[in-house]
Structures are given as structure tokens and as C-alpha cells.
């Protein structure tokens, strides 16, 4: 599933009643849990290193019937049903909604592991040949649309042609579109047989990159039901670009009628485990029932209800009242977990793959900031001033994992470099002070540190930094969530101890990402030194392409490293399976930014059970309720 998104920000909300109770993070054994229903394991739990809470084993055997309810919050509602989602509607929440009805070609994750799950995918893993320029995809023959037609290669080609029509009309018509990437990098897409798709590429790419970031956005569409340009109109040949445009315009127009999602016959043709039976235009709350023609695990319960909540507090109150089967627990409510657990809720949390970071602005020339931040020793000194353990404990209530690079140790992936397993720059004011003083700075604790040894030698401040230079930094941080302010304040407090003056300034998220960003607001390059907007969730192939390469669309701070550029390029184009690990290793050491802890995504559930993986994947923005059954407890 294409899920490169910015970390969600929550509506700010108030502290709740009840005394605070800090819960310790727990978990020390290796990850467990597999898929598959049945079984009667009781009393067993599986723990994952870095997880919050434990995953209970499946309890009881699946019984038919019952209703499963889950929460959708304001700002996280599904707003677009057709699986070619415009950028304005694109979100992991919208994708989760769509995937209940229309399955993607390749499903990620597998539990809370950032890999493709072959069992839930509609095709076998792709086979690369012809020097990586030909991709053969053999689809499974067990999936059908609810109108009885098979899910086959034509449905994949239909999606590709409709995607081409969409982005040709306006690049913003598909949120996951980047010019030059899929489908632009595909010369031809053919179906030599009913269940086989062959893609011919313009050039070869790193197979891991292409599979995990390009092929995983494909979502087959019913090519014999949706290839129309008007209601009740004739079925068109979608391979004709003019027809493809007409079809896209029609489907897009129908997708704008949210009040008709449950009644429009178009959207009743599904290949996913559920069918939509009601959809509220006011709140986007919806109800689904099992799709009896689904080719995978069929749900055994009767109804899946998505209930709308205007705030995380309202959702949490619903859980306290025992009225919700599954809900997300915001960090603010962690002190109230004992109340939730007393209601019988299981609680589990884990970070999703991605990283948080405080951006360095390498372009600001005001007061020689670009010269200062360009020095690695200085960035290392700042890293030593970041107390991630304290932030995890105090700001996140222990529901977070420390993160030292773009590919953190938690969540566990195959790509984490060895130098990110432990903190290469542990919190130490003494080490920060030593780095500065050994490079020509006179460190004045709680005063003003100045450069006393200008020059470009190994013990000098650095080229272009004059004698008497002070270090004064303004850091705008997003005012929501509050943790960004706490991270920035902690850094400012520690920096003061080595004579670096940091002024945190609260701004809205939108203001920061639009005004303090080199690619989109270069006119403001001299107005900020660092900024803290949060971070990114990444694809399961966690390259920082476009984030840390020169000229990247979201290289906010203008980081420019020839070495990083080469490594990022290798991650995308070379055949080295370890390319992205090497990229991450370099960036962990070279500090294009200050990496910050990854928040756990915490979920609570009650009255339902199933394989542990089907709950673990909630933390990765994936939703597979078809594996659940109602226990009534």
C-alpha cells in the first residue's frame, strides 16, 4: 500500500480528569504471533521489543454473528471511495476504508512488520528480468468481484490506464503521484494471459524500491463494471486514452457524491472482505457487511461499524463507556489506561515505520548560521544535547521509541543499519561541550559561547565563522501535538548549559511546512535556523528520496551532501539489496537533521479476538478486521 504520509497531527484537546499514572513501557522478548484463525490459546501473550503493552493470543474459537465497531475521528474520516485518490483526500485512513472494499495488489504490512504480506496480496511477488526492466506479476486466481467476474490482469491494466488519465488531467488527481515515477516509468503494461501482467520499464530500478514503493500503490479496479462514462452507459475500451479520460471523469464525479456511496451500484462491485451498506454524508460514519464472494478470509461477524468521533476525547469516553470495540488511545489519555483496562480492554502500541526530526536549515546565511550548521561536529554536539530518554518518558509517557536515524531500530525492519541500533550520540552535555571547545569555541555554561579560534583547521570553528561568533537559534515548532514543543524546549534547556541560545516559537503545522521550507518558500530561507513540524511515515522501503537528496521536493532544510545523493540514488536505481541500509547508515552518522523519538500508535480493543497479527497491524495504519470474531466479553 502506498503510504508515504506525514505524521498525522491530532486536534488539540484538553487534559482529562483522574490522576496521572505513568505506565512503563514493557516487552523484552522477540516478536511472536502468526496469522490463521481457530485455536483456543488462552493466557498467552506475545511481546515485541519496543512495544507498548502486549499482544494477547487469540481467545476462543470464531463464532458467527455480532457487531464490531471502531472509531474514526474528525480529520481522519474517509472522504473518497474510488481507489485513485486525489491528493486532497489522500490519507492512510481513506486508504484503510478503501481496502476494506477494494484490495490492493500487494498488501503491507504483515502484522507490525513492514513487509509485503504474500497471503493477503492478490498476486505473487513480482519477478524481475531483462536486467530489471521487465516485471512479471502472476495474480492469484482465487479472488472474484462481487458481480462474479474474476479479479484478473485486465483489472490491473484498467487501474493503470485510469491512473494515467487522472494524472494527465491534473497531477494532483492522485496523491501518491510523483512525476517520473509510476506510471510514467512504465513503457508498456500488457496481459499475456488472464492472470499475468507484464510491465516493461524505461530503465531498471532497485527491485526492492520498485516493488515496495511503486507496485504497492496498484489497486485493481473492476474493468468490466466500471468502464463506463455515464450511468447506464455503454462499456468502453479503456485502453483508448480518450475513453480512459471519460471513464475517469465519470468515476471521479461519482466519487464526489458521498451521500450515495452506499447506494450507487458502482461501489457495490467489490473484491474486498466487506460491502458498504450505509454511509453518512454528515460524519462519514459507515456500516459494512461481509462480502460473501471475497477470496480471502471471510468475516464471521455480521456488521462492521465505523463510528464518528468529533475528538479523541469523545472516542476515549466511548471506550470508557464500553461502547466501542476498537479505538485509538491518544498519548494524552495514557494516564487513564487503568480505567480502560478495568473495562476489559486489551491495549497495544508500536510505532509505525518512519521518523521524527527537527530540520536544520542549511540555507540560512543570517549571522553565519549556514557555516555553523554545515559543520558536522556542531550537529553532533546538538545531538548530544537531545535527551531522547527523557522525552520518551516525560512527553510520551513511555509510549514511544528512541530514534537515531531515518530507519529506526523500532519498528524492526530488515533495513535498520547497525549504527542506529544504539544512540550514536547519547545525551551528554559534557560531550557536547567537549565537541565545541575542541573546535575553537569558548564554552560558557548558561552564558554565551563564542568562537575564539576561527579557521578551517581540525581544531578551528570552521570556514567562514569569524571570531566572536555567537550561536543563537530560533526553532519554530508545531503547536500540535504538544510533544513538539516539549522536544524543542528540552533541547533549548540543554543547549543553554553550553552557551547556545535557542528560542522556541510555536506556530501551526501548516504555517511551518509552507513558510519554513526551502523547496516551497525559498524567500524565507533567512528567517529560520531549525524547525520542528513532526516527521514522516515512510514506505516499507524507507529511502529518504525527495527528503534528504539535493533538490528533493520535501528537502525542507536544503541538506546537500554528495555522498548522501549517491547513496539515495543507489537505493532507487542500483541492484544492491543493502542500498537503503547503507543510505540510512550514512544519514544516521551525518545528521541531516536531529532525529526525534517515534510515537507508539496505541490501540485498545474489547469484545473481539483474533490472530495477534490482525491487531498488531493496527499500529501500521493497516486494518484487517476480517480475521476477528466477537467474543462478547
Amino acid at each position, binding site marked *: 500500500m502506498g503510504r*508515504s*504520509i*506525514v505524521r498525522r*497531527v491530532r*486536534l488539540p*484537546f*484538553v487534559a*482529562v*480528569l483522574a490522576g496521572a499514572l505513568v505506565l512503563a513501557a514493557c516487552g523484552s522478548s522477540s516478536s511472536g504471533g502468526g496469522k490463521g484463525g481457530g485455536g483456543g490459546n488462552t493466557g498467552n501473550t506475545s511481546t515485541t521489543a519496543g512495544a507498548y503493552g502486549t499482544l494477547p493470543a487469540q481467545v476462543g474459537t470464531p463464532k458467527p454473528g455480532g457487531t464490531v465497531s471502531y472509531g474514526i475521528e*474528525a*480529520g481522519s*474520516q474517509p*472522504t*473518497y471511495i474510488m481507489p485513485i485518490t486525489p*491528493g*486532497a*483526500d*489522500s490519507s492512510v485512513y481513506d486508504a484503510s476504508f478503501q481496502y476494506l472494499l477494494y484490495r490492493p495488489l500487494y498488501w503491507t504490512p504483515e502484522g507490525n512488520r513492514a513487509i509485503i504480506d504474500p497471503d493477503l496480496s492478490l498476486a505473487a511477488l513480482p519477478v524481475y528480468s531483462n536486467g530489471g526492466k521487465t516485471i512479471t506479476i502472476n495474480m492469484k486466481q482465487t479472488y472474484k468481484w462481487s458481480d462474479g467476474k474474476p479479479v484478473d490482469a485486465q483489472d490491473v491494466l484498467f487501474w493503470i490506464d485510469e491512473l494515467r488519465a487522472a494524472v494527465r488531467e*491534473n*497531477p*494532483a*488527481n492522485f*496523491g501518491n*503521484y*510523483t*512525476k517520473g515515477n509510476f506510471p510514467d516509468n512504465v513503457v508498456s503494461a500488457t496481459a499475456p494471459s488472464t492472470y499475468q501482467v507484464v510491465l516493461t520499464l524505461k530503465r531498471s530500478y532497485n527491485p526492492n524500491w520498485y516493488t515496495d514503493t511503486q507496485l504497492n500503490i496498484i489497486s485493481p479496479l473492476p474493468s468490466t463494471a466500471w468502464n463506463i462514462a455515464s450511468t447506464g452507459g455503454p462499456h468502453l475500451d479503456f485502453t483508448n486514452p480518450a475513453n480512459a479520460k471519460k471513464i475517469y471523469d465519470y468515476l471521479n464525479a461519482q*466519487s*464526489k457524491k*458521498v*451521500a450515495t456511496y452506499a447506494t450507487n451500484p458502482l461501489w457495490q462491485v467489490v473484491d474486498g472482505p466487506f460491502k458498504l451498506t450505509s454511509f*453518512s*454524508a*454528515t*460524519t462519514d*460514519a459507515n456500516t459494512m457487511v461481509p462480502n460473501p464472494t471475497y477470496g480471502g478470509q471471510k468475516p464471521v461477524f455480521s456488521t462492521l461499524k465505523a463510528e*464518528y*468521533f*468529533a*475528538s479523541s*476525547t*469523545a472516542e476515549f*469516553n*466511548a471506550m*470508557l*463507556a464500553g*461502547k466501542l470495540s476498537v479505538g485509538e488511545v491518544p498519548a494524552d489519555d495514557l494516564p487513564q489506561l487503568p480505567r480502560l483496562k478495568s473495562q476489559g480492554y486489551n491495549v497495544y502500541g508500536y510505532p509505525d515505520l518512519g521518523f521524527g526530526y527537527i530540520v536544520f536549515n542549511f540555507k540560512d546565511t543570517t549571522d553565519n548560521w549556514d557555516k555553523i550548521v554545515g559543520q558536522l561536529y556542531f550537529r553532533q554536539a546538538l545531538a548530544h544535547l537531545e535527551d531522547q530518554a527523557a522525552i520518551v518518558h516525560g512527553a510520551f509517557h513511555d509510549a514511544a521509541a528512541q530514534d537515531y536515524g531515518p530507519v529506526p531500530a523500532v519498528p524492526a525492519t530488515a533495513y535498520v543499519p547497525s549504527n542506529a541500533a544504539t544512540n550514536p550520540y547519547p545525551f551528554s552535555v559534557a560531550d557536547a561541550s567537549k565537541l565545541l571547545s575542541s573546535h575553537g569555541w569558548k564554552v560558557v555554561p548558561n552564558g554565551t559561547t563564542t568562537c575564539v579560534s576561527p579557521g578551517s583547521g581540525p581544531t578551528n570553528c570552521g570556514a567562514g565563522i569569524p571570531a566572536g561568533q555567537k550561536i543563537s537559534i530560533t526553532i519554530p515548532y508545531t503547536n500540535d501535538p504538544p510533544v513538539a514543543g516539549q522536544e524543542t524546549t528540552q533541547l533549548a534547556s540543554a543547549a543553554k548549559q553550553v552557551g547556545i541560545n535557542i528560542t522556541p516559537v510555536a506556530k*501551526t*503545522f*501548516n*504555517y511551518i*511546512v*509552507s513558510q519554513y*521550507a526551502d*523547496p*516551497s518558500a525559498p524567500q524565507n530561507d533567512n528567517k529560520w535556523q531549525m524547525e520542528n*513540524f513532526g516527521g*514522516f511515515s515512510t514506505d516499507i522501503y524507507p529511502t529518504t528520496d*525527495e527528503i534528504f537528496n539535493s533538490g528533493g*521536493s*520535501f528537502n525542507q532544510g536544503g541538506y546537500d551532501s554528495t555522498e548522501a545523493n549517491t547513496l539515495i540514488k543507489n537505493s532507487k536505481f542500483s541492484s544492491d539489496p543493502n542500498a537503503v541500509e547503507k543510505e540510512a547508515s550514512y544519514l544516521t552518522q551525518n545528521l541531516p537533521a536531529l532525529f526525534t523519538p517515534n510515537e507508539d500508535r496505541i490501540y485498545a480493543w474489547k469484545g473481539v479476538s483474533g490472530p495477534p497479527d490482525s491487531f498488531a497491524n493496527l499500529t501500521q495504519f493497516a486494518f484487517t478486521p476480517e480475521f476477528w470474531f466477537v467474543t462478547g466479553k
Partner: protein
Amino acid sequence: MIAYLLRRFLSAIIVIIGIMLVTFTMLHIISPSPARAVLGIKASPAQIAGFNHAHGYDRPLPQQFLTYMNQTLHLNFGFSFKLNQSVTDLFKENAGRSALLSGVSVTIAVLIAVPLGIFQAVKRNSVADYTLTAVSFTLYSMPIFFISLVLIDIFALHLHVFPFEASQATTVVGVLKNPRSMVLPVASLVALSVAGYSRYMRSSALDNLAQDYIKVARAKGLSERAVLWRHLVRNSSLPMVTLIGLSIPDLLAGNLITEQVFNYPGLGLLFFNSLGTEDYPILLAYTLVGGILVVLGNLIADIALTFTDPRIRLT
């Protein structure tokens, strides 16, 4: 009166156009285009340009404003970028319920505050007056979210007397069919409003109790009940008329916190969410409707005053 109304109508038009111009300009000064906020930080330059072109944000500002005015005159308020619906539909879906919550709360608050204020004025400096004053100040100083959470915790989560959330019906009729679910949200709003309204009422009643006509009424032998209800209430209610008129805009946006806590989607929440996502069509429509309601509220208050106080003439 006709001439007065015509003058007010013309000045209202000017005010509303001014509001539209200021809001439009401010939004575009803060952010010339909402593309980045709507499409996300990872939107490519091509996507940003495509979005801007499709929605006219790449045109000169005066041209954008004229287009906006023209659409507004044709009652076309645009399409929400993030909610995938027309702004008109969104307002229709949410306005009725917001108005119901605010309207019922204001009505109940006034019905309680008027006699309460009169009572406190008549029994001024008594134990009852001091007690009620203390309660009023306590409620008035409490943030609305705190009152709401306390009510939920006690009456919903512990005593199970009322539901923890407001009615989830999407229509006004649907909400009215489940009045029990609206008790707590209304109670939280009333608690806050009564505190303020009753203080105004008390103060106004005290002023009027000192007037000669009250002494004359009593000297004529009227019962105390007749003195209070026939003379004091009407004359003391003039500030309440103004307060109610000024609270008409609250029908639109005043209940954001209540909507959030009690899970009652309304216009306040719609506006707040749109601020965060820079959903310009909703923001512009909202301020326009808000401006109209403010103007209307003031006008209604001024006209109502002429009925309650014959000395007032509109010229």
C-alpha cells in the same frame, strides 16, 4: 421605521462586503494558496501547480476576489477540498443541529436567568443571594470543557443516567426524538450562560427596583407578585434582549468545545477543522454567514428593544 430598515439594510450590505474583502485578503496574505495544506507536505511542485490552476489560485488576486463575489451572488459557495462535498451541503447538514443546540441552550438559560436575577435582586444581600452569587462566579470561571467532562464523568460514566455523547442523529427531527441524549450538552452550555445572564439580570433589576415607578406601584397596593412580574421583569429585561441578539452568531460557531466533547458534529467543529486544513471555501462561507448573522442579530435586538421599551424610537 421603513426608512430606518432600509438604511440598516444598505449599511449591512456594505459591512458584509467589507467582511468578505477583509477575510479574503487576510487568508491570501497568510497563505496565497492552500495547496500545500490540502495536498500535504509531500505534494510535488507539479501537484501544487495543478491544484492551483484547477482552483484558480494562480490568477491575480483581484480576479480571484471577483470570481468569489460572483459565485457568492449565485449562492455557489464552492466545494470543500478536504471533505469532498459542496459547502452548501455541509452547512445544510450541520446548521440545523448547531442551531438547535444553541437555541435550546439560550432559551433555557434565559428562562432560568430572568427569574433568578429578579430573585437575587429582590433578596439582595441575603444568604440566598450570596450563595447564588458564589455559584454563578464558580460556574462562570469554569472552562466549558471542564464542566462538560465533569458532567460526563458523573452522570454518564459513573451513574449511567445519561448517554456519554449527544444524539448522533443527522437531522433535527432525529435529535428531537432522543431528548435524553441532549441533556448533558445543553446542561453544560446552560450552566455557563445562566451564570452570566443572571448577573446582568440582577444588576438591571437592582437599578429598576430603585426607580420611582416601583414605589408608586407598591403604594397603589399592587401585590408584590404583580409589581415584579408586571413592571420589574419587563423593564429589567432590556439588557437581556440585547444579549440574546448578540448571541445569535453563537448559533453558528459558539459551541465548538461542546461539539467536540459530546461528539455532536456541528458548524463550530466544521469551522475549526477547516482552519487546520486551510479549507478556504468553508472558511470564506463561514465568515460570510457569520457576518450576516452578526448584522442580523444586532438588527433584531434593536427592533425588539422598541417593543419592550416604548421610549425607544428607531430613526
